[in-house]
Each structure stands twice: as C-alpha cells, then as structure tokens.
C-alpha cells in the first residue's frame, strides 16, 4: 500500500464540483458526461453492464456495503415488467451529508448512473426518494431531469435505441427508517414505512410487487465513470487491496474544516482528519470518532491510523457505514454523546418490533440517568444485555442503534463508571 503524501487524489465523483455552483448538463458533458450511457446503449448488453459493475467491486455506499453487481444479478432474467430503479437519497443517518453535496455538485452524474443501472436491470421507471430537508436538491433534480429529458437522455427510445427510462422525484415525509430499503418501498407505495423482512427480495417483488433495484446516490454515481474507464481502473483507485474506487468522506465535529472530501477508498483516518479536514482545533485532541454515521461503533485513539475502507473496518469489528466521520475531542463526554445518539434512535424507531421500539427508549433512559448522576451500578450490565438483545430485532435499525452504546461500553467503560461513582457527569463537574 502506497503511503500517500501528495494530496492531489483523482476526483471522480467530484470531477465537476465547483464551489457554490451546480454543474449544468453542458459542464457535465464537457467532461465526458453521458458518454457512458452512449457506450452502454450502443455497444453493451445488459449482462455486460452487470459484469463490469460486478468486476469493479463497487460496494453499496448507503451503509450496508452490498456488492452492487450482485444485487443487479438477483433480478431474474424472466422477472416481470415494468421494473423499477429507486435511488435512495434519504440520507437521514446523523452525520451524513455526502449525497447532498454530490446532488448539488453534479446532478447529471446521478441521472446517468440511474440510466446505466436501469439499462442493466431492464427497468423503465426510476424514482429518486429524497428526504424533505433536501427540498433544494429535489428541485434541482426535477429541473435537471427535465433538461436531460429534453436532451434525449431520458424518455422513450433513448439515443435512438429501444431503451426507455423516466425519472420521478419522490419527496419523503421525513423519517430515518425510510432510508431502509423495504421501508422505503412501502413509503413509495403510500403505506406506513415499516420494513418488511425478505423474502421476497425487492429485486424479485418490490414496488407494486415488481422487480425493484434500490441503490444509494453515491453508488449510482460511481457507475458512469466505471463504464467509461473500466472495472480495473475503478478498483485501482483504492489504496487498499480490498477496496475499490474513491469514497466521499463527510467529516464533521471537532475539525477545522468540516466538509465532504472525495478520497481514495482506504485512506487513513489520521490523514483525513489532519490533511483534508484541516486538523483539530487548538486545544482539541482526538478522543474518538464515529466512522460512518450514528449507527456505527466509535473508533478510539487506537484506531487513529486505520485505513478507512469497508473490509479493513469490518475485520476490526467496525463498520465504515456511510463514511460520515464525526470527530469527538477529549472534552466531549462520551456518555452524553451516546445519549444524544440514543435519543435519535428512540425518536426514529419505526415502532414495528418490540426490542427496538421499547429497547431504544429504555437504553436512552439508562444513559440519561447515568449522565445525570442517577446511575446505578446494575445499569452497566442491563445496558450490555440490552445491546446484545437488540440485535434480535426485526431490521438493521436496532443493531445500528446499539453500535455506539456497544462502543461506549467497550472503549469508554471507565467513563461510564466515573459517572456512576461520582454521581455526576465528570465533564460537567470539571467545567
């Protein structure tokens, strides 16, 4: 693995990103935009496209890191029509804002990504599911979709072939669970957005019981460059053997330059913080970070040099999630931070299954008591049990919800005990 000292990493997804400016269709085309779909339509079969995506080792960027090519392959050859592509632009995972930045930077990249996905799944209808907080982005998308349609990239018989595809923008009513695939499909059908355990899988029976391929914004945006430059090129973008491509790292919290940076997959955490995010502010020292949104486990000081890619983190018992890095310094109380995260999960639990619906507020209550000096020694064991058993919930929400608590109990148990023994929050006390 090459130590990277030069900062000029290739900008693939952000190739057209300009400060405070949305790339127009012309900007996009100037840099090779819509060439990929041209190539696809004129020279590739839908199986070819699947193969390239599979070979590129593109893993889903929405958090679950499922291979995008494999997902495409689960659409059976004889599956019924019409088929749907859903772009997951819900992005409600706290700390995550990469999709927003990407949508504002280069909307046509997403449109072309959806086109490629649609071509390979033989889908004719695309829906972008977007959170209501991103009203601005939703309008941009609607506008640019219309422009793309005028330019002949969307609609009937695209580029003269027999491939037709349209895109609608669907605004959510706003709830974290809507980001989960099956819940999102329920939401799109006007049902309560509770998840629905497979089988059947969405690629078999999704929207209106028809095959539906759902993918994150960033995942889809990776597709045009992959098609243009090939699978191998994409894999080689990563710094690690297991990784592939670049990654949008959103960094926030105790850093000087919070923001979204496109860096090769596998870049080290220390580098991201120090080099790209401008280091930590005066007087702040790295204590911990959440590597990929609220539903991941804290990385502590020991992981400061960790290469940030899916596989490496997984091997260390962690998750890269959405690569939304939230940095905490030594002045932050980890109990209080975890309490805040738990309050989020308790508020957003969809209410379908018992462990999550009742367990998240229970954990929140215990953490609140500990943080406010009312902790009791038994609480620690109760917390551990709760965390363990929330893994038996109905969907991936609950295991995500307990990840920070597990991290807290694993890496910062002393801090928890200090709260209990001192009957107050040590950080407040020292203020």
């Amino acid at each position, binding site marked *: 693995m090459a130590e990277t000292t030069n900062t000029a990493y290739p900008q693939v997804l952000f190739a057209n990103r300009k400060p405070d400016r949305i790339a127009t269709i012309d900007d996009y085309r100037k840099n090779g935009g819509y060439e990929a779909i041209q190539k696809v339509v004129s020279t590739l079969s839908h199986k070819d496209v699947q193969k390239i995506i599979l070979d590129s080792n593109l893993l889903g960027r929405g958090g679950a890191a499922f291979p995008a090519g494999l997902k495409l392959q689960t659409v059976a050859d004889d599956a019924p029509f019409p088929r749907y592509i859903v772009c997951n632009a819900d992005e409600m995972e706290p700390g995550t804002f990469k999709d927003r930045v990407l949508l504002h930077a280069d909307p046509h990249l997403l449109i072309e990504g959806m086109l490629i996905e649609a071509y390979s799944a033989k889908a004719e209808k695309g829906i972008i599911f977007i959170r209501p907080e991103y009203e601005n982005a939703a309008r941009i998308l609607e506008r640019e979709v219309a422009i793309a349609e005028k330019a002949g990239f969307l609609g009937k018989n695209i580029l003269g072939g027999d491939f037709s595809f349209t895109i609608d923008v669907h605004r959510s009513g706003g709830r974290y669970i809507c980001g989960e695939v099956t819940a999102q499909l329920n939401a799109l059908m006007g049902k309560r957005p509770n998840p629905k355990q497979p089988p059947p899988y969405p690629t078999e029976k999704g929207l209106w019981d028809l095959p539906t391929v759902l993918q994150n914004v960033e995942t889809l945006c990776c597709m045009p460059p992959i098609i243009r430059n090939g699978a191998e090129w994409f894999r080689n973008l990563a710094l690690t053997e297991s990784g592939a491509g670049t990654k949008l790292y959103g960094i926030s919290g105790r850093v000087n330059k919070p923001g979204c940076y496109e860096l090769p997959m596998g870049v080290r955490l220390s580098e991201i913080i120090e080099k790209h995010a401008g280091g930590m502010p005066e007087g702040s020292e790295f204590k911990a970070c959440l590597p990929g949104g609220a539903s991941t486990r804290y990385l502590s000081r020991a992981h400061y040099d960790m290469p940030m890619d899916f596989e490496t983190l997984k091997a260390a018992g962690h998750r890269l999630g959405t690569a939304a890095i939230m940095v905490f310094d030594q002045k932050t109380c980890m109990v209080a931070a975890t309490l805040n995260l738990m309050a989020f999960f308790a508020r957003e639990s969809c209410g379908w299954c018992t*462990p999550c619906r009742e367990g998240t507020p*229970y954990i929140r209550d215990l953490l609140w008591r500990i943080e406010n000096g009312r902790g009791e020694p038994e609480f620690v064991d109760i917390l551990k049990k709760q965390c363990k058993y929330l893994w038996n919930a109905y969907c991936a929400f609950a295991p995500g919800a307990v990840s920070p608590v597990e991290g807290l109990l694993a890496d910062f148990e002393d801090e928890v005990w200090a709260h209990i023994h001192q009957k107050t929050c040590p950080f407040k006390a020292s203020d």
Partner: protein
Amino acid sequence: MPKLIIDNREITVPEGTKVIEAAERLGIMIPRFCYHPALGSVGACRVCAVKCLEGPRKGIQMSCMIDAQDGMKVSTTDAEAVDFRKHVIEWLMLHHPHDCPVCDEGGHCLLQDLTVSGGQGVRRYQGPKRTHTDQHLGPLVAHEMNRCIQCYRCVRYYQEFTGYEDLGVMQIGSRVYYGRFRPGTLESPFSGNLIDICPTGVYTDKPSRYRGRRWDFERRPAVCLHCSLGCHVTVSARYREVVRQEARFSESVNGHFICDRGRYGFPYVNLPERPRSARVDGTETGWEAALKIAGERLESAAWKTGPQGIAVVGSARCGLETQGMLKRLADAKGWRGPVFDIDPAAANVRTAVSRLDSDLRVSLREIETADCIVVVSADPLNESPMLAPALRQARRNGARVAVIDPRPASLPFQFDHFPVAPDDLAAAMAILIRKCADKEPLSELGKTAVRSLRGVSDGADIPDADGLAALYDDLHDSRRPVIVCGTHTAPPEIPGMAADLALLLRIAGPRAGLFYVMPGPNSFGAALLSDPALSFGDLVSSIEEGETKALVVAESDLFGSGIDWDRLQNALNKLELLVTLDYIDSQTTRAARILIPTLTAYETPSLSINNEGRVQQSPAAFRGGDPIARTGGGEHPPRAFRRDIPGREMGAAWTALPTLGGRNPGSAPVNLTAWLGDAHPALTSLPESSDFPPDGVRLPLAENAGERFQTDRFSHGEKEEDALTLLVADSTFGTEELSSLSPILKELTPSPCIQIHPEDAAEFDLSTGDAVRIDTGAGTAVLPVQTTDRIARRVLVIPRHRDLDDRLPRERRTVLSKTAIRKATEDA
C-alpha cells in the same frame, strides 16, 4: 416433508410449516403475541424466540418467521432463548399500567399469562410511563390503549382480514397508537373479534363490563343461532344470565371469528319481558299443570273437530329436537303440519336442500380456497355476515368474486356486481348455463338433457349480458369455482339453477362447489321435517274458514311472517285454542290462551342443522332459571335460600310437546337419535351427544337428488314495463328475529329507509333524503329515500325492520304499480 427436532423430539411437518406451528403439533406452545393462525407471521413482537442449534440457521431465531427445514435442531428451553423472551416481556411491560385487578381482561390475558410464566416479576425500568388517550368506539368495544403491547394484531385483523379501514395504527416508535381517525362507532360488523384477538386488555367487551371475571362464568361451547351458517361461539353465563359470547374456533365453519350479530344477539335470554311462567286463560299456572291442561283441551278439541282441526307450527329457530317432536306429534295424533313455513322462502330452502348433493356442497371455510365465486340472489353481509370475510379471504388469495343480485350489495373487498332485477335473475343464470351447455361436451348427461339445456333461452336481453358471458369463462377457467346462492329473496327457479350450474361446471372440468344461504338457523331442519303440502298462508285461510280450530305454535312468532296483522289477529281470535310455547315475548305469546314458557338453546342441549347440512350440537351453557338480578330484588347476595332454581320449572319445547299429545308429563323419548331418525331418514345415524364431533356431522345427502336441469322452469315472462319490484331485504342488524331483540345492537341498527336507483327516483321526483310514501300492499309507510346506482333498475329495496313489520308484505318480492309510491310532501 421436512423433518426436524424440537426440544429433542422429532417431527415431520408439511413444507411451509413454521417452526412455531411445528412445535404446536408436538404440544409445545411457544409464546406468541403477534403471530395468529388466521393472520400469519409478521415477526413484530419477538416473543417467540427459540434457539436453533443445528441446521440451516443458527442462534436465536423467531419461530414464527422460519420455515421448518430438514436437519433443524431447535431448542425452546435454551437459556439464552428463555432469557431473551424474558427481556421481550420486560420491554412490553415497561409502560404497562399493571392494572390487572381492575382490567376486564384480567384472568384471561395472554400478556398476564406470559409475564407470569416468563418469570418477569421485578420492575427495573425507572423512567416515566407513556400514556395514551382512549377513544369511544361504539357500544360493543371498550378501548384502553395504555394496555397495548403493539402486536399489530388488531389492525391486521381489522384491515387485512376483514377489509375495513376505520381502525388503524397511528404514530411512530414507542408512541404507536391503535384507533380511529376520529372517535366513533366501529364500522365493521365484525368488530367484536378485536376483543378476542387482542392479547391484552385494550379492546374489551363493553356490554359485559363489571359483570364478572372469566373464572366467575359458566363457559360452554355453543352454536350461533342468528343466521344459517351456525358459527361456533363460547357462551359465558353468570347469575342465571348470559353475559357475553366469544368466537370459538371451528375448522369447517367460521374459523376463528364471528360477526357482531352473533356475538351480541343473546340478550333475548335475559330480557325481563321473557315469559317465565305458564299462563292458562291469563292466569299463572304451574308449568306441568299448564301442559296437562293444554293436553286435555287439545284432546277435547280433537273430539269436536277431529284431529285435522288441530295444526302445529314451528319455525326455523326451533332446535332440531323441537322440529322433530312437532312432526312426531302431528304424525302420531293426525294433526296437520308441522308448518315451518313462516318464512316465505321456505319453498326455496326445500329446493336447496333437495339439490345439495354431498359432493357439491362446500363448507364456509372451503369458500376461502375457491378461486372464482358467483354469488347469486344473496347479500352476504346482510344475510349471513360471516360469509363476507370468507369471500374476502378467497379474494385475497386471488379469487374473482361476482355478485348477481338486485340489491346494492356492498362487500369489504373488490368484487363485480351485476345488479340484475329479480325478474331477470333467471335469465342471468340462464346465460351461464347456456354458455356451459354450448361449449362443453356434456355427453354424460344424455342427449335429451343437452338438447334441452341448449334450448335454454340465452337471456341476452338483460343488462350486461356480455359481462355475464365473460364471467362464465372465468368460472370455467378456474380450478375451484363455487356458486353461492341465496334463498331469502330468490325467485323460485334460482336455487335449482344454481345447482344445475354447479353440476354442469363439474362435468365441464373444474371441481365446482355449491353453497346455499338460508333464512334461519335451522332452516335446513325445517325443510327436512315440514309438511310440504301445507303452507302458512293456507293454514291461516283454513282458520278463517273454520276448519282449523286449535293451533300449537312452538317458538315461532306468527306476526313476523308478514301476513297482514289485522287479518292474522282476527284469525287467531277465531281459534278455540291457541297454545304457544316460546322463550320470547311476542304477539303470538300474548295472543295465546295457554302459554308455555320454554328454555332457550343456552339452557338446554340443542341440535341444529346449518346451511350446508351440518348437524351441530350446543350443550346447555347454564341451567336456566330466573336471573338472580330479578330474584334477588337488588340484594346481593340474594338472601332467600332454596334448594331448587327459581324459575327453572320449565323445560325445552320438545320435552313439553309429548304432554300436549296426552302423554305423561316429561315422558320425552330418551334416545334422541333414534326417534329423530323416525322423523327423517337422513337423521338416522346421528352420534350420541357425548360423541358429537366438534364440527358436528354433515348429513349424508342423496347424490344428485332432486329435479335436475328442469330447463323449462325458466321462461321469459313478460315484463310489466311500468311495474316496480319491492324487495324486503335483510340487514345485518335489526332483521333477524332474536338478535333484533338485543338492546346492545339497538344503536347499530340502521333506521328504516327505502333504496332506489337515482334514475328511477328521478321519475318520482325523488332524491336522497326525500321522504316517500309507499303502499306496500300490507300497509302504508313513509320512509326516507336513499338513492344508489348500485341497485338494479325498477327495484325498491326496504331492509326489513321491526318498526315496519306490520306494514311490509309477507312476500320478500312484491310487484307494485307505479302509483304505489309518491313523494311525501309536507302536509303528509
């Protein structure tokens, strides 16, 4: 067939069986809240967790969500699984009000049971409890949301199973709330099942509130007597009153649920006006003494007029024993009757009974598996409510459901309605039959039959004939079509044609089934046992002509027959003797010279035959007697001590009847089944009451009995262009005799109205909300108009209603001239 091991015991189960079900077969009841056999698995509550030790999955799994698979080794007692389940219960109890002592579910609460058995006894959570505001849901169901454990059973039952959408789940996370958009009476006529299906005390039985605990009740199985389906119920009695009813599972009849008419129809048993002491010439007399007097007077009447001057009348609500005994009595004494023909539909029922071959008939549950259903001349929701959810399950499984009926049928699912006028119903059926005869090789029927079938008029001049023709194609292409045929309002040809169609389909390929809906709980028995030569109308005439001088009426209100009340009253006045045996207060009991109170089916064992010829048995739920609320005079506990049960001198009608025939009091034959066999050969082989199977026994019915393919019975009558047909229809609440006495259901009974097609209404300058004055032939009524385009043209529908009984015609179908209706103006 996967083979697996659960708790070290091996079992083989059919493919697709869930582990929770497989365990149940071994007698292992894995805890469950959200799983329900009628609603399936959704994996919400997580209390059914088990540990998979070996096999395709490992670790903690939800037993309701995983299919039994080969090589699985499952432990329900594994320490981790037990501990996890205990945690699930702790979660569910975090916010629970712990109000078991005052909760109406206390004592039969699944949450209570699992909490205790799961060993979750200590409260650890210190946070505040969430609370909810309750809603008023109408007279039947009380709402107490704080007790909810969010298992989603109620909404899944209410919306998915029965297809109503006025109860739902609101909010998110730990605040989820089950209720209505606005407080108000639940719209579903199956709402009472919420009480049974909710595993805790959120929905409780409102009418029985504060009347006792589960363990205070005498609880017995029974069969519902409020329509012909004969659903299974469990009765709870206390202090000599029936207090509540619940649905009881039946594999073949109703499944897990019942309708609200059936659940809340029982109060006739408890009513203060119920006759409880015998009367002779207006004077209270001992029960047996009164019987003896009645026997003597009948004997002397027979001396005077000969046995033919006496007639016996029963009804479709009499138990099979009473019906049989009436026949036995009439036969033995040479009296006329029995007439069960109080309902004019009885002739249709006789046709139905004669055509219901054993291999054609299907049970209510089997309807759920049909893939194409044609309902003709029936209005399921209003006539036999539980038929509607059965049809809905078929629909949910992809069946096509079509209703050919003039009434504005509504059903809680998507169906095709052919609003065919009563006069055209036979033509509509003819389209289906003709098409079958034209298309299919029916050689086994013989040439003549085929020729005559092909000669059936094609009925092409009725509205939407093409739609009906297309319906035939669907019938033919289905695997399991079912013809559902009503008898209440059907023209006389229809029940036979329905059977013809089913039979033809069967010959043509698909395994067709036939299902009749009948007017009363024991219409089937009445049809088997009645004297076909004597109708009630004839009987009234013979009274008027002085031929019949004495009448024995058992459990039948003659005034419900629709015969003009003045005429009937005059006829009864002419009688020398009217002996009425009944357990409800009616005009007929009031008109009786001798009144013999009888026990209800709740107080004495009773048999009845449902619409598919299934003989079912209800044991006595309690022993009868005056309710303690009355004998105690408000004192609690009552202070008068005696050995006998006050008010329990009376017996069942059938035990009284032999005395009327001059036998010794109480000399009813001992061996029930033997003498029922005398009454009708089909009843010969009924099991002893102790051996009666839970789902009863289906009578062996002669194969292909009755008159088949009588195509000539259908002819295109001339239509009177200007005439209107008045249909006196049933409605879910307020029509059926016994349940319409229920104070509980009063609030749900719609007020009388008349329904008409808007275009027909326009002709009379009427629109919804106007009042119309109608001369029905039996009387004049002023009714509010409801227009609906789902009704057949030139048809008026009046749902039968107690308030109108004196003014509605006896016939369910009456042809009226246009002058019979006009707008009622202010001055009217």
